[in-house]
């Protein structure tokens, strides 16, 4: 598994985490697994960046957290998207998509 590329920006991690939580509450480890699976192993976020992002998002009230039991009966902190978080995800996704399309257009060989 490759380490997270250094150019992986804070904002990028944030939107990936928000997206991960869009459908379901998850604990941090599950989020990292989900991201890796979803991107076919291309996007891997290291633990440091992931947890910093999660606590940052909690600070902005885009996610809330609560303790729960993990699959293997361990105490784990579960994160849930708030309605503000959903809204943030929508706007950020739109921005990102258009940005990515623009970059793609530029890079496309004629």
């Amino acid at each position: 598994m490759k380490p997270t590329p250094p150019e992986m920006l804070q904002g990028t991690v944030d939107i990936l985490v928000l997206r991960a939580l869009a459908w379901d509450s998850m604990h941090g480890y599950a989020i990292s697994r989900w991201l890796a699976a979803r991107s076919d192993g291309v996007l891997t976020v290291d633990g440091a960046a992931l947890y910093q992002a999660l606590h940052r998002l909690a600070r902005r009230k885009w996610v809330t957290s609560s303790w729960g039991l993990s699959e293997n009966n361990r105490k784990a902190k579960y994160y849930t998207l708030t309605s503000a978080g959903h809204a943030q995800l929508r706007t950020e996704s739109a921005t990102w998509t258009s940005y990515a399309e623009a970059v793609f257009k530029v890079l496309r060989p004629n």
Partner: protein
Amino acid sequence: MRKPYSKFFARTDVPLKGPRFLQLPWRSRARIARDIDIELSFHLEMRVAELTAQGMSAADAARRAREEFGDLELTRAYCRTMDESTDRTARISDHVADWRQDLRYAIRTLRRSAGFAAASLLTLALALGANTAIFSVAHSVLLEPLPYGRPESLVALHETRATSPSERYQLSPANFFDFRAQQRSFTGIAAYNGAPFTWLPDNGDPQFLFASSVTANMFDVLGVRALHGRTFAAGDDAPGKDRQVVLSYGFWERALGGNPAVVGTRMTLSGRTYDVVGVMPRGFTLGTNEDLWVPMDLSEAMADAVRSRKQHYLRAIARIDTRTTLERAGADVSAIARRLAAQYPEANTGLDALAVPLHESMTGKLRPALLLLQGAAAIVLLIACANIANLTLSRTMGRRREMAVRAALGAGRARLARQLLAESLVLAFAGGVIGVGVAVVATRTLLALNPDTLPSMFTATVDGGVLLFSLVLTVGIGLLMGLVPALHVARVDPQESLKEGERGTSQGRGGERVRRVLVVAQVGLAVMLLIGAGLLVRSFRELTRVQLGFDPDRVLTAQLRAGGERYDSPDAVNRFYDRVLDEIAHGPGVAAAGAVTILPTRGSVGSSVRVEGEPVDEANIPEIRYLAVRRDFFKALRIPLKAGREFDASDAADGPKTVLINEAAERRFFPRGDALGRRIRIGPDPNGEPMTIVGVVGDIRAEGFAVPVPPTLFANHRRETWERSLAVVIRTSGDPASATPVLRRAVKSADPTLAIRDVRTLDDVIGSSLAPRRFALGLVASFAGIALLLATIGIYGVLSYAVASRTREFGVRLALGATERSILLLVLRQGLAWSLFGLAVGVGGALASGRLLSRMLYGVQPLDSTTYVGVVGGLVVVVAAACLVPSLRATRVDPIQSMHVR
């Protein structure tokens, strides 16, 4: 047991407890750190488990997981900072949310119990309004500086008697000049004196103006400058130079349209021409709201060496030199006064002098009245507090079940207490806002209705200081009235309450006791206030009746002059006045009409007098004041006839002249009480026409209160028609102003060419001296009324509640054969017992504090039994009435219904 991967977190010293699924609202710093460690170690453990499952050794897996994770220490620190900040904001917004919830809940609850809220609001608005209004006046009068330059170094100079320093006189002109020449403590001494003028505008009717004549240095001593033009310069009060006038801002604006060009023009005052030299800035006054100021030429007064030393009419203001002190200045003037007493013993024996700070001199009379009013307002406030605490408490008892349920659902006692506090604060603030509104309106209205109450430099306004006072008061009350029930809730055991609630019968003993104490306190305070007000009312009546000697209420006065050639014979004058007075006397709403040469308190003329049959010392002929009266003068002013008779038809014709004298004259000239039938002669001629005394009337005050009533003679104006000007006095049954058309019609029909001047109420004529007293009295009386009302509501409320909560008991009693009468008496006895106890406490308090009032009382003892008996009797009746209604309700209990009451 040690967790396998806690070695990653060697610094973790907080032991891990069992899992907690319920998150506490706020976490400690240690708790936050621990939570983060748990979270991160979970992540690492999961990764290690995954790697070992792939066949990696445990040690390799752990190293790998650490490497993949990145900077662990940085992440822990970052997450802690984030979480601590999150918690802080959450805590604050939780507080805010809680308070908002409390507030919303309080408003909703109050809206649901509209009766309670309305009663409390009314009580609070009255009490806070009264306190704010009085404070706004007291603040302005007692705390604000005077509108002069460096007012703290200004003093008023008074002459006084060495034997009774509380008496204060104005200065005589000769003494004033001697003080001025000999003093070494002041940078200047100025004097002023009232000087009314009639102003004849270029167009329009003549106007009566209030003015003061002042020494030329007055404005310099006060440290004030003119707004336009100049003030008086040194020497402007010299003879021949005194035809100058400085206008007040108010007069300049009102009568001259605020035109600066009037400076330099001339105006006609009382038939003389004056140069307008200046206009003073807004708000400047010497205390009597003068229209203008003219220089005071004292040379004429000083020409008479005897009178100039004996007549005390100058008000003196001096500025203390910065190099000396008030004490030294006082000693200085006192020393001068003693020298003058030695030098002019016949005029100055026993006279002393003192320097009083000007502020104190101008507000001295108001100070005790204002403190009294503030005290009365404070008592009203206390009663209101007791009332509201009582209402709130009754309500709290009724809400015990609700509180118990909330407590059972997890609300802490502090939370419940806070809820109650929020309710009381909401109420208090609403009451405070209304109260301030009431105060603003009340002060404006009251002062507009009683313009003479305050010296005009004091403007009672609700400013920042006053608002702060009200705010402090409001918050204090809110806390106080919330605290009683809040403390009560804190003591209540929810389990007990719930059980009791189901039974729905007895009431908490503690609350009951508190409410009784409150009722006793309320009644006690109301009694104190009522007794105080009663004493003041009686004292005021004594003052107006005994002190003035006549009743100025509801009397209209006007000046008439039967002048011109048509009135050259006594018959013509008599015909005119007879006709006018007859027509007025028969007019609607007129109780009595008469006339006099000079109105009471407006002075009098003196004449030498010789009593027939008494030896006369020709070198020292005694003096008597002389007034001529017509028709029902004595009846119109309610001056009592002490002996003999008034004038009647038999005195009209050519028979011997008859007169009445006052009691002072009887005491002076007929100490044996044999005045009736004796004959006196007045005037310089020892063989003039004698006048027979046919009656003695009560003394009336012709001057101020401090001056003893001089011996006075009342001649029959029908026989003394050489005096053409008379003041008509009309006693009316209603508003004295309503007699004005009657008066005008009467004069017009008797002689349409004659003018009527100075149509005023007698109150107005003498008014300014009594206005503050009357004002204060009205306020204290209304405070006492409010207090009585509040106390009555309090008793009624508590007893009603007691009856309501004992419904079941009464039902049982009735079912077991108790008569309605016995139930009635049971409740009545209970209510009366509390009230009478309160009454006793109040009387005790009034007796103890009576001495405080004694300075305000006149002619009434602080322990006046009439007042005490009247108040106590009246209160018993009111209280009994308040108790009767709930008592009757108790007898109407339906035994069967009452069993079903929950």
